[in-house]
């Protein structure tokens, strides 16, 4: 992130203190929906059908956002998800390049560039971008994941053309002023300390990824970069990354909000159209290591007060390996460890072994995905008890498989709230942009709830066996007090 994100801290009412510590999670479809759980199975019955402005009832086969998309002559993909609730527009530009594209030995370049993109372009002086957005009553920020770098502004709808003017200028040519590089390197190093170096759980996660994939593998490097490599990044590295990856045909523009298609077409042509077409290199992600450098790690940290267990498996994703397994793995993660009532919750939390236990799947990625299980033991519970209990749950699922009822329940839970993604202007651009920028079609998002509904028990059990019994690599790790 360019700045610590804090949703407009209470300018109207109660002031909320900016947290200044925002997670740099990769944006995925599912994460955008987190907290939004609801039901395809239940037909939508509008509560007050007499109200003339009521949205028409939705059918299960309707696209989630009803977004329209087209491509400019220079290759820039444009997507519009209209939402007329308030006269507001969200403007997101996704570059199809993230920390996974950092050159070998130069982790952190993608993220450093994200910071330097706020330091001016030929027609917009350094610092003027954010100052202009603020003066117009808007918010702006940016984020870097392993697969994408995204820049966004949320503004009153009439200010959208101004945003497009400014964003297209830095897409074409950021200045990267040499005399601002060192102060910004200081900012990035402080960001690293805030996220990782001063946070024991951040240090552990970083060490865990390096242990599993290798510290110089694209999947094992920290998104923000290793400290010594951040220190070594040059202005030329940053410029090269932009020149190579920030091309119109390697970018996706998403607008959500109170905007008409004809207007957006005109503005896209006017502001983004003139940027010359340039080809970007295809993603070139190294294959998996033959084995995890460490298949087991135990890290003691004097700052830690409570131990944690984590085991992660390499897994197919929506773009890698047996991509058909991606949706079933999403379902499997829920029935295994998606909160109260899941297998891990029953076996570890309800029994008093653990304070929390769960599973997660990150499959909306370029290249290999990951499937993980975790637990935080109750005081006095031995490490072996936790691992034995988890192994028993997994062994039963591998041998007996999940039941039909469990699979249907998980699908219902995962999709019941899908329409809640329409509440607000954050989910549409993040879900659509996140998918398109990693090469998935728009239908991947628009018909996601339907696809989930079609997942079968056999597919879930096949996917579970594939990941748990024959993972390409896997690592188990403990973070322990001391």
């Amino acid at each position, binding site marked *: 992130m360019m700045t610590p994100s804090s949703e407009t801290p209470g300018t109207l009412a109660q*002031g909320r203190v900016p947290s200044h510590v925002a997670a740099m999670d990769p944006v995925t479809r599912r994460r955008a929906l987190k907290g939004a759980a609801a039901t395809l199975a239940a037909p939508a019955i509008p509560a007050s059908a007499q109200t003339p402005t009521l949205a028409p009832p939705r059918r299960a086969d309707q696209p989630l956002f009803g977004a329209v998309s087209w491509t400019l002559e220079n290759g820039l993909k444009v997507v519009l998800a209209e939402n007329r609730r308030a006269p507001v527009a969200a403007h997101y530009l996704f570059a199809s390049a993230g920390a996974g594209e950092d050159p070998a030995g130069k982790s952190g370049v993608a993220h450093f560039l994200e910071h330097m993109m706020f330091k001016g372009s030929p027609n917009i002086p350094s610092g003027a971008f954010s*100052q202009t957005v603020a003066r117009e009553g808007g918010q702006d920020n940016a984020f870097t994941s392993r697969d994408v770098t995204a820049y966004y502004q949320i503004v009153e709808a009439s200010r959208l053309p101004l945003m497009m003017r400014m964003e297209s200028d830095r897409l074409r040519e950021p200045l990267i002023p040499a005399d601002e590089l060192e102060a910004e390197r200081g900012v990035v190093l402080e960001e690293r300390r805030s996220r990782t170096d001063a946070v024991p759980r951040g240090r552990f996660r970083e060490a865990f990824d390096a242990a599993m994939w290798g510290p110089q593998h694209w999947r094992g490097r920290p998104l923000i970069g290793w400290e010594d490599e951040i220190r070594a990044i040059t202005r030329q590295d940053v410029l090269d990354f932009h020149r190579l990856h920030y091309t119109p045909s390697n970018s996706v523009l998403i607008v959500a909000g109170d905007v008409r298609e004809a207007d957006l077409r005109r503005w896209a042509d006017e502001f983004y159209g003139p940027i010359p077409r340039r080809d970007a290199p295809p993603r070139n992600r190294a294959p998996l290591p033959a084995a995890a450098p460490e298949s087991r790690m135990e890290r003691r940290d004097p700052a830690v007060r409570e131990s944690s267990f984590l085991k992660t498996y390499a897994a197919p994703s929506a773009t890698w390996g047996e991509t058909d397994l991606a949706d079933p793995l999403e379902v499997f993660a829920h029935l295994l460890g998606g909160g109260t009532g899941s297998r891990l919750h029953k076996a570890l939390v309800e029994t008093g072994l653990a304070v929390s236990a769960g599973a997660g799947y990150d499959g909306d990625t370029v290249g290999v995905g990951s499937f993980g299980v975790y637990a935080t033991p109750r005081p006095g519970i031995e490490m072996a008890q936790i691992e034995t209990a988890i192994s028993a749950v997994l062994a039963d699922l591998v041998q007996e498989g999940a039941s039909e009822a469990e699979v249907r329940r998980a699908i219902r839970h995962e999709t019941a709230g899908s329409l809640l993604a329409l509440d607000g202007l954050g989910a549409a651009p993040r879900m659509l942009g996140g998918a398109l920028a990693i090469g998935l079609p728009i239908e991947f998002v628009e018909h996601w709830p339907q696809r989930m509904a079609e997942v079968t028990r056999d597919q879930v059990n096949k996917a579970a066996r594939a990941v748990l019994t024959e993972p390409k690599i896997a690592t188990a790790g403990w973070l322990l007090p001391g």
Partner: protein
Amino acid sequence: MSDTLFGVTLPPRRGFSVPIQSVGQGGITAWLVEDHSVPVVSLAWAWPQGAAADPRGKEGLASLSAAMLPEGAGDLSNVGFADALMDAGIGLSFTGGRDSFEGSFRALTDALPEAVRLARLAMTQPRLDAEALSRVRARALLASRQSLETPAGLARRAFWEAGFPTFTAGRLSTPESIAAIGQDDIRACLGAQLTRGNLLVTASGAIDAAGLKALLAELFGALPEHPIPDTPPLPNLAEFGVTLRPKAAPQSTLVFGQDGLLPTDPDWEAFQVALRILAGGGFTSRLMKSVREERGLTYGIGAGLDLLFGRAVIIGNVQTANASVGEVWSLIRSAWTEMAAHGPTEAEVADALAFLGGSLPLQFTDSRRTASLLLNLRQTGRAPDWLAGRPARLAAIDRARVARVAARVLKPDGLVLAVSGEPVGL
């Protein structure tokens, strides 16, 4: 008149207003912002007290009690209750805050009856099973202990403990106080909190006044009617100077602050302008420019008004490498002194007013955020027309007024600091 910026013509802004309806039912009044563009309804409600009523030695009671409500109710076990919520995509939560006890849900319109049924069940027939208490307590203990793992957690805690040593806002839960809480305490807490008395409700989304009336009767009708005492007024922040919680880490967290003003202060909004210029959001504040942009000493610095017990405290935070702590603290105090002594420039005031006025529509794109914003307004004692009057009030603010209120409120010598890490140069 149209302006032009970077070659782009800026049309006049579209008009925007937020009609707030006041809906009464059975002694309860709810504020409603109705919007049928998306089939979603969000509801938020609150009572005074929360942790303010935690008995000494049982700090954490309100928070733990709130966490127990979704752990099974009526004939639904904890799993049954969680399943019912997830089956319908309902997000329901209860929280015990510093000076309030709150509930909220968001549901698709077709799931609204189920959301009301489950929220009502949780409030009227919570099971409070012993096993559930054991799980919830373990979770609270873990969170309490994990919050002490980082300089950020330690510094935050130190600020409140040192700032209000004899007041409830400074009495935070500890593993011991959480362990001391029993089922009877939770019953007593919920019995006192869950009432139709002093209840504030707000709603946003695809529901009309008649629908909301019916919902209020259904959701809250079965609660008892006893009133809840008002919370005590917030005392002055203790002038504790600098307090340090040592922690082995490469970076320190600084939490700084001073007394704020009352929300009824006629210069409340003029002071919001002053504070935004000094330390507010985004890149534009003086502190962000001097500490981050020019010197690269932090990822972020900011301060805001934190409203509790009817009064605002100015509180800010920043994280910086241990070696820079002295320099950053000195920059903060200089910026504070400069703003108190000379106020902002004309251009800074114009920019801040443009932001505060222009950002209004952005607060109303999300039904949960809208309901929560309305609830905050009510907890602050605002009238329903407060929002509508805001543009006119902002228009009446000029540089001189901002400078006056900055000089009156900002006390560079009274600025206190809680710091954790291994700071150098203090």
